């Protein structure tokens, strides 16, 4: 089982590594870090803060967009191009195929986030800001966010077209990110609006848990520039993400299992 999943994952990694858009995104992220250095020079004694904010925002934004892009295309093109015919006719379960595709995406996204993080750390070094444990935790949380978004995208891709899957996945990511704001915005709304919002937010992964810097947790303000969350929080957020990833992949596998490949 592991061997088959690994075979699909390696092949997916190889496939994704050929997508030129990824290299464009890489250039964009490195460019945004360079922009952070420039903006840092304009600010007074805030160069490190700007580099951290821009770097982490870049990882979250471009990492999640890349995850959506890969997730909606990699599974769909297997069916569309019929490359899947020579694969699922071999002794591999469809769920193993879905998990293998996801594992391949995890490899690609981990490399990408790693490169993004390396670029950010180099820029922080240039600014003389150094890398605090808060930055490391924030990077781990961003990586978990990207992996969760990838699972959302692959779930929609198991039954829909790339265009619709992209829209649905993007919507879920944005709503998940804005959950606390949406809850606050409906706090004084009519009860039915509150109930509807609550229900809608329940079926969306809480990706805001991975972007916690600047928010207040249990009455305490947390910031990557100062007091950040403890490792136990990172572990809990990771468990939450893994739960969603497992559930989304299970649903994707179930839907994929029922499909005819004509």
């Amino acid at each position, binding site marked *: 089982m592991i061997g088959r999943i690994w075979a699909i994952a390696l092949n997916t990694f190889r496939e994704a590594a050929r997508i030129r858009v990824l290299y464009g995104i890489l250039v964009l992220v490195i460019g945004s870090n360079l922009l952070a250095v420039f903006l840092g020079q304009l600010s007074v004694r805030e160069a490190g803060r700007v580099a951290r904010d821009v770097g982490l925002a870049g990882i979250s934004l471009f990492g999640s967009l890349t995850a959506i892009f890969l997730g909606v295309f990699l599974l769909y093109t297997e069916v569309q191009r*019929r490359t899947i015919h020579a694969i*699922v006719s*071999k002794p591999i379960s469809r769920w193993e195929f879905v998990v293998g595709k996801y594992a391949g995406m995890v490899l690609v996204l981990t490399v990408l986030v790693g490169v993004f993080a390396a670029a950010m750390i180099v820029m922080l070094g240039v600014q003389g800001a150094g890398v605090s444990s808060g930055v490391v935790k924030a990077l781990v949380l961003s990586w978990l966010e990207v992996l969760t978004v990838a699972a959302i995208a692959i779930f929609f891709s198991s039954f829909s077209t790339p265009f619709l899957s992209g829209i649905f996945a993007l919507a879920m990511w944005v709503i998940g990110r804005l959950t606390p704001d949406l809850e606050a915005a409906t706090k004084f709304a009519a009860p039915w609006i509150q109930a509807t919002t609550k229900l809608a937010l329940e079926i969306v992964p809480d990706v805001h848990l991975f972007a916690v810097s600047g928010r207040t947790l249990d009455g305490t303000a947390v910031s990557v520039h100062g007091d950040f969350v403890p490792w136990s929080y990172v572990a809990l957020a990771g468990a939450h993400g893994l739960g969603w990833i497992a559930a989304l992949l299970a649903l994707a596998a179930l839907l994929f299992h029922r499909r005819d490949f004509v």
Partner: protein
Amino acid sequence: MSLLAARAQPAREAVSCERLADLAIDVHELTKTYRTPFARTKVEALRGVTFSVERGHIFGFVGPNGAGKTTTIRTLMGLIRPTGGTATLLGEALPSRTARAKIGFLPESPYFYDYLNVAELCDLAGRLFGLTPALRKRRADELIEKVGLTRARGQSLKKFSKGMLQRAGLAQALMNDPELVVLDEPMSGLDPIGRKEVRDLILELRDAGKTVFFSTHILSDVEAITDRVAIVARGQLQAHGTPAELVSKTLQGVDVIVRVATPDVAALTEGATRVRHVGDELAVTFGAQTDVDAWIARAHAAGAKIVQVTPRHETLEDLFVREVAEAKP
């Protein structure tokens, strides 16, 4: 067996367990209906297909475009879920991963990852079959040589012609040294030499004890190498048996070629169903009822020299055309 007896029987007794063990493929009343979600239309791709394939046989599955050949094969390979009916592969009921581990499959117009080369494609197939790295390497080297792609082994599949892709597909299908080989249109896109090589490969596989099930449009290939044939049209099996059983032994007509001394051949073409007169060579075709001996005597008397006399029997192509034309809409 008469043609009528060889015609596919839509309903038949269930196959016993002992008999199933002797069969590589057993398909019983297989149906597949596609429904469009909103427009209440349905397309019946398979309408109760029933046949079986003995182990160690070469089985040809022929039919026109849209007959249901590829749907049957994709159903057997687990790509499509049947609407009804049952099927077993190597004694295992569908869907079966155990059976798929012993099967090699070449899809129709194969699409592979075009960034891989043939060795990497074989390696991927070997990994999915759970082969060890050493065995994957050895099998890939052997098969790449066998299908004649040694010189192109470093090229990405993107640069391959259709025929080369077909060969690459055959190589990946044989990585697991399968008991049953299922080939969907394996001769498609190949030149005459390539077709002969695939025919030879199929015969070689049969000689090695494998079962080969293949679909094709090329009836001469079917006649040349198959042990048994099934003709499918409009989602139903029309005939099933050995090529000899299926085609009628009754004389259909006689082709005669003579060399004539005079350009006036009107007397010799009387009663012929087809005439071709080029230079001093006259080719005529007579129906089965014509007294050809009397015609030959007349031709001799007119100074003609007999070059060739060929009795015509029904061919698989004749049968195919007739069965397809008679298939129920």
